[in-house]
């Protein structure tokens, strides 16, 4: 855990710009594939290359996905939106401009609710979204040595993006990370973005400024780029707050600039200042006509909306009696919620028990293996088998954990592991009675002392019986039989 605290006397203002690659099959303006990992330039057609005479044709899937996002955050879907050209020269942008939406974005307004802290300290915040617009991604520049030249791969050029711009509504790094995580969850629930931050499918830029507490006017902001994980987002914002406050407290001033986060050195570095920033000379794109959506189309998309994280978390609380925190964790990603729901799909399953296991053993295992829940070596069906054996008394929780470890390490079925390792819990009263009688017979002194009023010795007897049973006796049954025998009824 970081030791960060906002310096006293200062208020922090954060806004995020999130680029999410849309999970369409083809590009936003051409029929080339968007699949990741192809040979360089094998998925760059004449339109993506910006060859003379080509014309863009807008992908219906991209419009639909952007609209789904807007509907999910209760935004207004523009009945008329249009495209503009943002002009700049860079080799991975072969046309010399990025086709984007400046004047009339497809999604306007909306908001996302996030929670920071847990238990009694939990606080809800509403973060307003300014807009979300459609645009195309650029290609990739490879700066490795090609005889002093730069290699250009245009497979990514023309991949559809939505850029989601928030209002400067966040006041600390935790809120910013919670907001980014919530947007990440929403696009994955909607199935409109795979959310892979390492591959760059979901990119977050943070605008950060500080001002003396109580001031109305915003301080000068910097924009942090190159943040490819939520942990780095938190670190980068923390670093930037400290850097800005230090500057201002020592009589310096913040220069409006774009800064790059360097995770190896855990610091932000100047990339370019405002003076050097490009003048993009936006103008309406003459190659694309206005996009007009009617109510019927928008309503048909609204009908496609799945159950979203907030609604799911509410349902987990009311239907399964889970706490707000647990429901929040289990719905924090689509994959986690799907895993949990697969575990409890079986009739007679215990949702609270399942929640504890998913958030306890499963989370710990994933942490240890550094993998995502989708790659969990114990699939949901097997965890469901295991919980069934706990519920029917075959396994204690402790033995359950042993079986879980075995499932994670070697696979196999729950019943096979129980059989092979002889882990079956002893619940048979006759067998437990025999063990209890043996323990009582072997420890006459302790029995006398217990009966003379030394209640604490009860634990000693439980321990002896468990030892005799090699830990496999049903603890509840042991307690009952011991009580009966020792108390002489």
């Amino acid at each position, binding site marked *: 855990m970081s030791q960060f605290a906002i310096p006293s006397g200062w208020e922090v203002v954060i806004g995020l710009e999130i680029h999410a690659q849309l999970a*369409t*099959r*083809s590009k936003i303006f*051409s*029929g*080339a*594939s968007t699949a990741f990992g192809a*040979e*360089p*330039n*094998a*998925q*760059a*057609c*004449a339109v993506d*290359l910006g*060859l003379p005479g080509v014309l863009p*044709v*807008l*992908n*219906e*899937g*991209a*419009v639909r996905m952007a609209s789904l996002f807007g509907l999910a955050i209760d935004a207004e879907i523009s009945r008329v939106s*249009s*495209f503009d050209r943002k*002009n700049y*020269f*860079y*080799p991975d942008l072969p046309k010399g401009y990025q086709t984007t939406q400046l*004047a*009339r974005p497809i999604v306007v307004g909306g908001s996302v609710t996030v929670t920071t802290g847990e238990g009694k300290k939990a606080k809800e915040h509403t973060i307003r979204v300014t807009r979300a617009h459609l645009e195309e991604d650029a290609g990739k*520049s*490879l*700066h490795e040595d*090609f*005889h*002093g*030249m*730069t*290699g*250009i*791969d*245009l497979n990514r050029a023309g991949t559809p993006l939505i850029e989601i711009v928030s209002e400067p509504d966040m006041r600390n790094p935790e809120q910013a990370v919670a907001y980014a995580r919530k947007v990440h969850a929403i696009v994955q629930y909607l199935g409109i973005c795979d959310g892979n931050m390492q591959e760059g499918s979901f990119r977050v830029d943070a605008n950060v400024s500080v001002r003396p507490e109580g001031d109305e006017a915003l301080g000068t902001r910097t924009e942090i780029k190159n943040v490819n994980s939520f942990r780095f987002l938190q670190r980068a914002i923390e670093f930037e707050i400290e850097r800005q406050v230090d500057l201002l407290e020592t009589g310096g001033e913040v220069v409006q600039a774009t800064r790059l986060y360097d995770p190896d050195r855990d610091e932000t570095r100047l*990339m*370019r200042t405002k003076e050097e920033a*490009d*003048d993009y*000379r936006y103008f*309406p794109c*003459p190659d*694309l*006509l*206005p*996009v*007009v959506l009617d109510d019927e189309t928008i309503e048909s998309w609204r009908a496609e909306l799945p159950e979203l994280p907030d609604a799911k978390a509410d349902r987990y609380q009311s239907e399964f009696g889970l706490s707000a925190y647990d429901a929040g964790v289990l719905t924090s990603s689509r994959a986690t919620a799907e895993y949990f729901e697969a575990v409890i799909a079986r009739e007679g399953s215990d949702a609270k028990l399942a929640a504890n296991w998913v958030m306890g053993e499963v989370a710990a295992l994933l942490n240890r293996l550094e993998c995502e829940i989708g790659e969990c070596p114990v699939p949901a069906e097997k965890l469901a088998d295991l919980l069934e054996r706990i519920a029917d008394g075959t396994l204690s929780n402790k033995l359950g954990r042993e079986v879980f470890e075995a499932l994670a390490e070697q696979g196999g079925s729950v019943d096979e592991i129980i059989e092979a390792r002889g882990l079956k819990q002893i619940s048979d009263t006759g067998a437990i009675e025999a063990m209890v009688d043996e323990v009582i017979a072997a420890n006459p002194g302790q029995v006398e002392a217990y009966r003379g009023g030394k209640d604490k010795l009860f634990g000693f007897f439980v321990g002896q019986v468990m030892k005799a049973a090699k830990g496999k006796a049903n603890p509840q049954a042991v307690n009952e039989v011991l009580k009966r025998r020792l108390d002489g009824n």
Partner: protein
Amino acid sequence: MSLTNDQLQTVAHLARIAVEPEWTEALRSDINGILDQASRLDDPRLNELEPMAHPLDQVQRLRPDSVTETDQRETLMEGAPAQEQGLFLVPKVIE
């Protein structure tokens, strides 16, 4: 509206056009003429009109989301001045 020499140089730089000093005056005069023409749009009577994104009164046709292009890398790279391992090679750019 009148463009200064500095502004002219800035615009030329953004468009990556090298403007020879002896062209400056003639260009400035041409561009100022164009700007004067465009400034007719400042007419207050136009404020009541909805801005147009496109001169044609038509709506964008949408294309179904399907892959229709096959790999044409070889053909498309024929005109590239330099290439290696399927990449276009360009003079080194470091931001």
